[in-house]
C-alpha cells in the first residue's frame, strides 16, 4: 500500500500566470508565485503596480482575465468571495470597510458567524469577537462605533474582522499605511504572533521597513508584472527595485 500524500505537500496558495485587463490596461500580467504553509510573503511595488488588484483577484472580488488561483492545490479561479472565505482565506481592505451602525464587537462577530467553521449562534460569535478584539488589542473599544476609532485602531478592527473568520491564509492590504512608528512596531509584532499561531500571510505593504521586518520572502510588482522575488534584504538591494520605487532621477542624484 502506498500511503496517501499528506495535504501539506501543496502550498497553501499558488498563483499561476494570473492576469487582469481593464480595457487596454493590464493591471496584473502573468503573475506567478507560491506561499507555503506558515510563510509570510510581502508584496511591494509603487502606486498603481497592481497590488490591490492582485489581492482582489485571489479573493474573488475580481475575475481574472486569465491564469489560475489554487488554494491547497484546488483550483478556485473565479469563485465568489464568500466561497473563498469559506476556504479559510480572509482579507483586509486597503480602505477600511467597517459595518457602520454596528458596534466594533458586532463588526467582528459577523466574521465569526459567517466565515469558515462559523459559530452557530450570535452569542457564540460575540464571545469569539471578544477574544479576537483582545488579540489585536482593541478590546477596550468593543462597545464603540467604528467611526470613533483612531486610524490605527480602525486598521486593527479591519484585521480583527478578518481574523474572526478563522483563516489559514490571511491577505492584508496595507494595514500599516498611515501608522506611526510605535504603531507599526505593534503591528509587526501582531503579524508575527498570527504567523506563530499557524496563519500563512500575504502582506501588501508600502512601508519598506515593515516589509523587511515581517516577510520571509518579498515579491516586487511593477506595472502589473513581477519585477523580482526573493529574501527581503536581497530584493531591496536590487538596482531595478530601487529604480522602480524611487525613480531614475534619485539614482542619478545619489551617484553624483
Amino acid at each position, binding site marked *: 500500500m502506498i500511503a496517501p500524500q499528506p495535504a501539506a505537500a501543496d502550498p497553501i496558495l499558488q498563483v499561476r500566470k494570473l492576469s487582469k485587463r481593464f480595457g487596454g490596461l493590464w493591471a496584473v500580467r502573468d503573475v506567478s508565485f507560491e506561499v507555503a504553509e506558515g510563510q509570510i510573503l510581502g508584496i511591494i511595488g509603487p502606486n498603481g503596480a497592481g497590488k490591490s488588484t492582485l489581492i482582489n483577484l485571489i479573493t474573488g472580488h475580481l475575475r481574472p482575465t486569465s491564469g489560475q488561483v489554487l488554494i491547497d492545490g484546488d483550483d478556485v479561479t473565479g469563485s*465568489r468571495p*464568500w466561497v473563498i472565505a469559506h476556504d479559510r482565506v*480572509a482579507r483586509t481592505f486597503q480602505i477600511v470597510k467597517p*459595518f457602520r451602525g454596528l458596534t466594533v464587537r458586532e463588526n467582528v462577530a459577523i466574521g465569526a458567524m459567517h466565515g469558515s467553521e462559523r459559530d452557530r449562534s450570535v452569542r457564540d460569535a460575540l464571545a469569539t469577537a471578544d477574544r479576537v478584539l483582545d488579540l489585536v488589542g482593541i478590546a477596550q473599544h468593543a462597545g464603540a462605533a467604528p467611526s470613533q476609532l483612531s486610524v490605527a485602531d480602525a486598521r486593527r478592527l479591519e484585521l480583527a474582522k478578518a481574523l474572526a473568520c478563522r483563516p489559514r491564509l490571511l491577505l492584508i492590504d496595507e494595514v500599516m499605511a498611515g501608522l506611526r512608528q510605535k504603531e507599526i512596531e505593534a503591528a509587526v509584532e501582531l503579524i508575527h504572533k498570527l504567523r506563530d499561531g499557524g496563519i500563512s500571510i500575504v502582506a501588501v505593504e508600502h512601508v519598506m521597513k515593515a516589509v523587511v521586518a515581517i516577510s520571509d520572502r518579498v515579491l516586487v510588482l511593477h506595472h502589473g508584472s513581477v519585477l523580482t522575488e526573493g529574501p527581503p534584504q536581497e530584493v531591496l538591494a536590487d538596482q531595478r527595485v530601487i529604480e522602480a520605487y524611487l525613480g531614475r532621477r534619485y539614482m542619478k542624484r545619489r551617484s553624483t
Partner: protein
Amino acid sequence: MANSWPTLAGIAVFLAMLGLQQLIEPGTQRLLTAVFLFVALAQAWNIIGGYTGYASFGQVAFFGLGAYTVAVLMNNYHVSFWAAMPVAIVIGVAFAVGIGVPLLRLRGHYFAIATLGAAEGAREVINNMTPVTGGGGGITIPTFGDQAPTAYLGKPGFYIAFLVVAAASVAIAAVLARSRFGYAMVAVNQDEDAAASVGINTTLVKVIAFGVSAAIVACAGAFYAFQQIAFYPTDVFDTSFTVLMVIMVVIGGSGTVLGPLVGAVGLELLAQYLRVNLGIYNQLIFGAIIVLVVIFFPQGVVNFFRDAWRSRNFSILDNVRRYRL
C-alpha cells in the same frame, strides 16, 4: 434575559389589541384594521429596504399578486380562502425570487426604478389576462350562501386577521433582526464587498430578504382581497401602497423593528385624523407634516430618540446639523 422585555411588551400590546376589539365601535375597528395592514406592509418593506438596504419600489406587485391569487382561486375554482392564502404567499415569493435574482444585482436608484417597472408590468399582465382575472373589469369574490368557498369574516373577523398578520410581521422582523441572518442583512446594506469577504453569500441574503418581504406583503394582499370582496387591478396594484410603505419606514426609522411600527401607526392615525377634521385640505397638511418630519428627523423618529437617549442630547437643531452636512 435582560433583552426579553420588548418581546413581553409586544405580546402585551397584542393581547390588549385583541381585548380592545370588544370595547370599540365598528368605525374604529375598521380604522385599526387599516393600521394593522400598514404595520405588516411597513415591516415587510423594512426587511428589504431598511435592513438590507435595497429600496424596493415594486412591493405592491406582491400585494396585487396575493390579492389576485386569492380572488381567482376563490371565484374561478371555489377554493377556500385558507387554502388560497398560502398559494398567494408562494406566488408572491416566486415572483420575488424571479425578479430578485436579476434585479438585486442593481443598486440604489437603478434597483428602485427596475422594481417599479416590474410592478407596473405585473399589473398589466393581470389586466390583460381577462379570461382568468376578469381584466380591467375587476374581480369579485363570492361571499354569500353556497357560492362562498369561505364564509365572509366580517369586521370583527378581519380585525383579528389583520392583527395576527401585523403581529406575525413584527415577530418575523424581530427574530430576523437578532439572528445571524439579521447581521448578514446589515452587513450587505453597509458594504457588499466587505460582507462577501467575511463569508456572507450576498446574493442569497438579498434574495431571501426580498422573498420574506414578499411573503408578508402577499399574505396581507390575500386578506385585503377577501376583505374588499370586489376590486380592480388598479386598486391592488396601486403604487401609493408602495409609497406609503416607504414613507412609514423612513419616518419611523428604517433598520429597526420599532420604526415601521411607529411609522405605520403614527401616519395612518394621523391621516385619519386629518381626513375627519380638515376636509379637503387633509392631503396638503399630511404632505407638509411628512416633509417637516423628514427634515427634522432624517434618520427616522425611532433612531432619533434612541441616539438622543444615548447621547443625552435631545436638541432637534443639533440633529438637523448632524444629518444635513
